[in-house]
């Protein structure tokens, strides 16, 4: 503990020499690799040139490595925000522009074409607030467009960088529950026909030229069609918000009609009722596992047991549907564990499973040789509410453990009476 703190203090003072350091060894921790290597006690994690070099048991000769003493600590891959609007919003409500929402526009009649990769702001205070609590990358997308699709989402790193994009146009989202029906025609009878039509037109257009000189008699705009082509080819996932069992069955039927579609179900509140079908059809889910109320007629069977039951049936579960408080995804996973999810699956739901469903598990989501070194050193079990991230590395660089919130805390920890607080620099 003391050594680690000393190191952290040194780290912030000696920032320049540290940035130059290319090789780091994290020594002595219990490491959950989330790879086939499993959990390694008293491990050494070697990091070189921003990548994981090796995870091994015990200590080794470490000439040339900066050593981080992590004895008694727990090390995991950086957490991946599974469903967020990070970088698109500072304050969502009555405070100016919010890039996670849109109003109707003539450029797109379905919302498929909207592209958040133009809107991401790495200086948003939410970035550091999430980063210092172990969230090192995220999927980000619009929350509401008032149209059939919620646009094309992006994958971003939360590193302290001016170039946060990992992948633009990485997925497209839609909704087929009550929220979707309310938006599209007021009924699922309208919504599903709209969705099928959009997919059919996009499939028809695969391989065709859509330049302004070409004929196009579809009802979707060319811009929307261009966006949907990678989707219908299965190159990017379609995230479908579905909650009641009947809607989830419709999504499974959709996948059976269009077998090339790469479908992920979000919310899946009654997923446990169709868990086997989801597993059989290889459809992963992203959950808020704390949703256990019959808040609407499309989630009457909501229960805290959902995550555990789905995972038991073989469904790949991811957890993390938040923006300002995506840092609480680990508490959500912890509560899923308290209600039946196996602990390792709880951690997988925050790391490797998210990487898999977005197809970035070749570079992120686990601590394996060659992967990007997004690493978190925790004070203890990361799913435990009383533990915290003590050190976070993104692409092999320790991040400054500071945010707007930590500065507010440090300013006000001791209230001054001799001068106004605005003169106090934390």
């Amino acid at each position, binding site marked *: 503990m003391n050594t680690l703190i000393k190191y952290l203090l040194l780290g912030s003072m000696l920032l320049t020499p540290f940035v130059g350091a290319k090789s780091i060894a994290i020594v002595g921790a219990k490491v959950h690799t989330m790879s086939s290597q499993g959990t390694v006690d008293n491990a050494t994690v070697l990091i070189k040139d921003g990548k994981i070099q090796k995870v091994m048991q015990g200590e080794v000769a470490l000439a040339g490595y900066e050593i981080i003493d992590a004895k008694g600590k727990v090390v995991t891959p950086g957490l991946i925000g599974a469903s967020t609007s990070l970088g698109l919003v500072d304050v969502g409500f009555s405070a100016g522009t919010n890039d996670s929402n849109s109003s109707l526009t003539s450029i797109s009649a379905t919302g498929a074409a909207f592209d958040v990769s133009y809107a991401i702001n790495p200086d948003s205070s939410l970035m550091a607030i999430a980063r210092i609590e172990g969230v090192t990358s995220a999927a980000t997308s619009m929350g509401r467009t008032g149209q059939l699709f919620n646009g094309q989402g992006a994958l971003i790193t939360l590193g302290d960088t001016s170039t946060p994009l990992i992948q633009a146009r990485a997925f497209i989202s839609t909704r087929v529950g009550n929220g979707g029906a309310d938006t599209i025609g007021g009924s699922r009878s309208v919504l599903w026909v709209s969705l099928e039509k959009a997919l059919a037109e996009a499939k028809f257009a695969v391989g065709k030229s859509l330049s302004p000189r070409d004929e196009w008699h579809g009802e979707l705009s060319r811009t929307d069609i261009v966006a949907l082509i990678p989707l219908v080819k299965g190159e990017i996932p379609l995230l479908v918000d579905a909650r009641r069992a009947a809607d989830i069955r419709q999504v499974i039927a959709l996948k059976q009609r269009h077998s090339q579609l790469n479908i992920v179900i979000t919310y899946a509140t*009654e997923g446990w009722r169709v868990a086997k079908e989801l597993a059989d059809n290889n459809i992963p889910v992203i959950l808020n596992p704390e949703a256990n109320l019959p808040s609407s007629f499309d989630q009457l069977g909501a229960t805290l047991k959902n995550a555990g039951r789905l995972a038991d049936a073989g469904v790949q579960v991811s957890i993390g549907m938040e923006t300002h408080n995506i840092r609480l995804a680990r508490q959500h996973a912890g509560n899923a564990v308290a209600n039946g999810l196996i602990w390792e699956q709880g951690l997988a739901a925050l790391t490797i499973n998210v990487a898999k469903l977005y197809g970035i598990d070749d570079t992120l989501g686990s601590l394996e040789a060659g992967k990007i070194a997004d690493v978190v050193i925790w004070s203890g079990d990361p799913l435990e509410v009383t533990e915290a991230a003590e050190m976070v590395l993104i692409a092999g660089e320790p991040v400054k453990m500071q945010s707007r919130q930590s500065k507010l805390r440090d300013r006000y920890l001791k209230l001054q009476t001799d001068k106004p607080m605005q003169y106090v620099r934390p």
Partner: protein
Amino acid sequence: MNILDNKRQLFKLAAVASLLTLLGCSDSSEDKANEPAFQINANPFPSTYKPIPSKSVLITNATILDGIGGIFNNSSVLLQDGKIVAIGNDLSLPDDGVTVDAKGKWVTPGIIDVHSHLGVYPAPGGTAHSDGNEATNPVTAEVWAEHSIWPQDAGFQRALAGGVTVMQILPGSANLVGGRGVTVKNLPGTTVQDMKFPDAPYGMKMACGENPKRVYGKKGGPSTRMGNVAGYRQAWADAQNYQRTWDNYYADHEAGKKDAKIPKRDLKLETLALALKGEILVHMHCYRADDMATMLDVMKEFNYKIAAFHHAVEAYKIADQLAEAEVCSAMWADWWGFKLEAYDGIQENIPMVHAAKACTIVHSDSDLGIQRLNQEAAKAWANGRRAGIDISQADAWQWLSANPAKSLGIFEQTGSLETGKNADVVIWSADPFSTYAQAEHVYLDGALIYDRNDPASWPVSDFELGQPGEGDSK
């Protein structure tokens, strides 16, 4: 005499009145001054709560937090006739009692949430069930949350599984003055009267900042924070004036004046006047430090008391002033940023307010959050320790039971494990400052009203009968 007497005095008067009737004195129409003065029924919707009959319970071998700073290791607590009888070792149990071995488990007072909208914004949602904001006028002190509560909200059962025994259900925060809140026991009933905490004082909801000005900005105002403050002050001034008309009536009546005229009742001003007198407790939604400081001045100007600022996201900036004013802050552990007035939320707010010796409360304002208030306290406790604010778990539990009870005016009855108090008790599967701890037994007035290990005993709301997942573990 005045209109706003408490119930006990009212009963006394009623007794006198009936005595007068018996003596044949009250129908003397010549001598009007001898008629008792008009009295307002202070309790027109009385509680019909009845505790479930219970045997004595001896919980043994537990780690016990008494809720007022004490921790007892490997100890016992005895519940008898609905009350806490003793904490300690070698307690003897009456013959017909039940012993619960709580080895490895923790025992705490039941959790009390000062800020819930269960029943007024129930599940399922939708406009048909949107009964929490009477958003037709910025001051609606005349409405009472209990008249909106739907007891079949499944949220009550979910909160019970989280160890919540008592809660205050408030109107929403659309209005400057939103109306009366009500304190209920979390024994899901058929009517709200069945749940009302007997003799608990009423609360009154007020709201600072963004919500009222947003809701009324295009509906005649207020549309600004300064408009909000003018609205509170005018409401209090009107209430003072209203009180005077009744004071005058009672004075005239007492003086035997024959023309003493009963004033016209105004339900809005009646509630406000009771709040000015401290008989109704003011609970005020307020985020920003400067908004709270303004309200502390309004409080002094009109000589009333704010029981608690709710949300109080910036309480840490004026914790010293809140301590001095003896106003509680009811807070989340880490919610922030969903509105501009919540932008400066920090995770050390709760421990920093506690460290300033100001009254500190953890609240939910959420049908999900209410199920895990122990975890909210745990996060705040742990974040405080990391910032160098070392608070014991035993002290921290005050945020969940004792301090909320004080702010609701029910601390004499509940909120701690002290001899003679209501036996509102939770047995946790483990240290409740953990994600993995769950409420196993919840006792209300000594009766076991939730047993996690006996699914057949769980309450199921009418709404959930015959629906997918009926009776499932929720």
